[in-house]
């Protein structure tokens, strides 16, 4: 099945830009750009922090910022979004303190490393593959039941489409006509497993047909196209027409995570062929061609992001390791069972090993079991 790939941004030469989609003004484009830069800055800094042993294993999303910022920018603030570990910092575009996400990767829990999903209509960082998809469906069903014009969106990978939860979520959403957008980032790899070992279908988008649901393909390195596909899907959702499956076709340019060594399983010269397509440069060129962005503006946006992220890192590093009581914090919303008091008592009665343990640099090799 051949399916058109939605693409707005050209390559500045043979491939021309398509017109800017309706609904996306110059201010929007700049804001979207700001988001991309912020995500990029967060990610690059995270990798550096990990190399320095200041956070633990980290799931890199370098190159996938367009799938995140583009889709999110299409959402209303009242819509709910559900990230996987790969969209770990998406909450920072919704008011989550970036220091909280860094702290999460540093292994901090409690008030330091977690945010309240309800405050940001952003699900917690989801680690088990595909398992957050039913949550997005449940939120959408509930919103519809309440008569609210609220939709939900979940990001997940190509590998995630193999899990039963992917199927169950799409099926529930289509039966319920739930206002949900399933946003698959097809970066063609699930750790070391290539697309063709994951599924026999030529595209992810065509998997929608089994649910009587539209499936669309979009260039995952094109943030504007991601915006457009998501906005259309959300319009449909809000109009009561049910869910959509979006496949953002791209490539995982980075290793799976900081502990992964892709040379063990793929030809990195192929990766290098994809690299120039990455969204930040693409978007920069696009905005320049549109005359919206000049070098000063770009520099200012980058500087702002750098500053914000630097401040967040500083804030994160000002945190002290949570005390022992964090183990028992918030496990139950209704209060602490007696077992917790006894546990804490036991803990307090022995000397604690070390005040703050550095995370320790993790070698860049999958030998440490660095998947997330």
């Amino acid at each position: 099945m051949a399916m058109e790939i939605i693409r707005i941004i050209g390559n500045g030469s043979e491939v021309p830009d398509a017109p800017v989609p309706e609904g996306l003004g110059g201010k929007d484009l700049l804001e979207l750009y700001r988001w991309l830069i912020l995500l990029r800055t967060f990610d690059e800094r995270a990798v550096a922090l990990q190399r320095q042993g200041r956070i633990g294993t980290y799931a890199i999303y370098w190159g996938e910022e367009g799938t995140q910022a583009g889709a999110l920018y299409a959402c209303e603030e009242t819509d709910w979004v559900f990230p996987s570990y790969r969209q770990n910092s998406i909450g920072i575009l919704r008011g989550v303190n970036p220091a909280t996400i860094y702290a999460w990767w540093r292994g901090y829990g409690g008030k330091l490393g977690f945010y309240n999903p309800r405050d940001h209509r952003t699900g917690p960082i989801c680690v088990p593959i595909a398992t957050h998809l039913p949550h997005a469906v449940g939120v959408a069903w509930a919103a519809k039941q309440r008569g609210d014009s609220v939709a939900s969106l979940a990001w997940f990978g190509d590998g995630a489409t193999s899990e039963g939860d992917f199927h169950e979520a799409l099926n529930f959403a289509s039966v319920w006509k739930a206002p949900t957008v399933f946003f698959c980032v097809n970066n063609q790899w699930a750790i070391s497993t290539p697309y063709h070992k994951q599924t026999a279908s030529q595209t992810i988008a065509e998997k929608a047909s089994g649910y009587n649901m539209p499936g669309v393909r979009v260039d995952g390195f094109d943030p504007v196209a991601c915006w457009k596909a998501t906005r259309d899907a959300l319009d449909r959702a809000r109009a009561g027409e049910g869910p959509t499956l979006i496949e953002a076709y791209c490539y995982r340019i980075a290793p799976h995570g900081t502990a992964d060594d892709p040379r063990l399983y793929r030809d990195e010269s192929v990766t290098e062929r994809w690299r120039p397509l990455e969204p930040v440069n693409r978007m920069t060129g696009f905005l320049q061609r549109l005359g919206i962005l000049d070098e000063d503006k770009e520099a200012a946006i980058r500087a702002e992001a750098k500053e914000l992220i630097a401040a967040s890192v500083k804030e994160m590093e000002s945190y002290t390791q949570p005390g022992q009581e964090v183990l028992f914090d918030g496990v139950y919303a209704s209060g602490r069972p007696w077992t917790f008091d006894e546990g804490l008592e036991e803990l307090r009665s022995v000397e604690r090993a070390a005040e703050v343990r550095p995370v320790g640099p993790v070698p860049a090799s999958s030998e440490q079991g660095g998947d997330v």
Partner: protein
Amino acid sequence: MASLTMVEALNLALHQAMEADDRVVLLGEDVAQTGGVFRVTAGLLDRFGESRIVDTPLAEAGIVGSAIGMSLYGLLPIVEIQFDVFVYPGFEQIVTHAARYAWRSKGESPASIVIRIPYGGGVRAPELHSDSPEALFAHVPGLKVVCPTTPSDARDMLLAAIEDPDPVVFMEPKRIYRAGREEVSEELPFEIGNGHGAPAELLSTARVAREGTDLAIITYGATVPLSVQAADELASDRGIQTKVLDLRSLYPFDIEAICSAASECGRVLVVHEAPRHAGLGAEVSSLIHERVMLDLHAPVMRVTGFDVPFPQFANEDDYLPSVARIKQGANKVLDW
């Protein structure tokens, strides 16, 4: 007051909760149109409509997972699992999500769901319709696991579970579903939906099902009435006064009730239907020995299901703890 079976009492609780709080919704396989294979949800569709009670597609991970999402949005979903083991396809959602949403959100966005599981044997059902998986849930931190044994408890505990902000696995011993009737008050046991939650004791305390001072039988679910019968026979057989403690809450345990029963009686038998190895009886036994061993005249012993797949039903009476086996266990403890 009305004389109700456990099924009717659960049905009453569902009607009352849905009436009192419009955030309460119910979803599961065959729950709406037919009112559930056990008829626990009968009448709810007519009363509350399809937007409150939903016949779902046949997929337990989807059911539990979407209930978690509904709860995030502010609803109070109740999930019905059709039979014991059919919860396993949804196990992942329960363990890695329902149990952890509170913790993962600083206690602020718990998965406020109730997972109702009709469970256990004794109803002459085909393979995989008679299991007792409660220990699997009780071992998972972040869940509450409860099990009512009487119609009144079923009504009150279900209301409390719905009102409780934390995820509650609600085990319903199906052997008791229609085994007897009890007067159940129609008055609400507490004010619903006022933001104060349910009184904690409804989901955390044990119940003395029979008084006694010579021996304590600690149990829960369908083996409670059997233990009471065994206790009655022990009284007439040999003049032994047996206390029967119905745990009700399987996590957390009512540690005071357990220890004081043990201390008071000095002899304890634990009874449950689930397999023995790493079952809840082991936890009861360990706790008692750790805390009040000096008060004991004999080790705590156990009468439980065996470490085998629940048998085909013609032999289920061989598997299930019987009054005779409970008495034999009791005598062992008494004569030790």
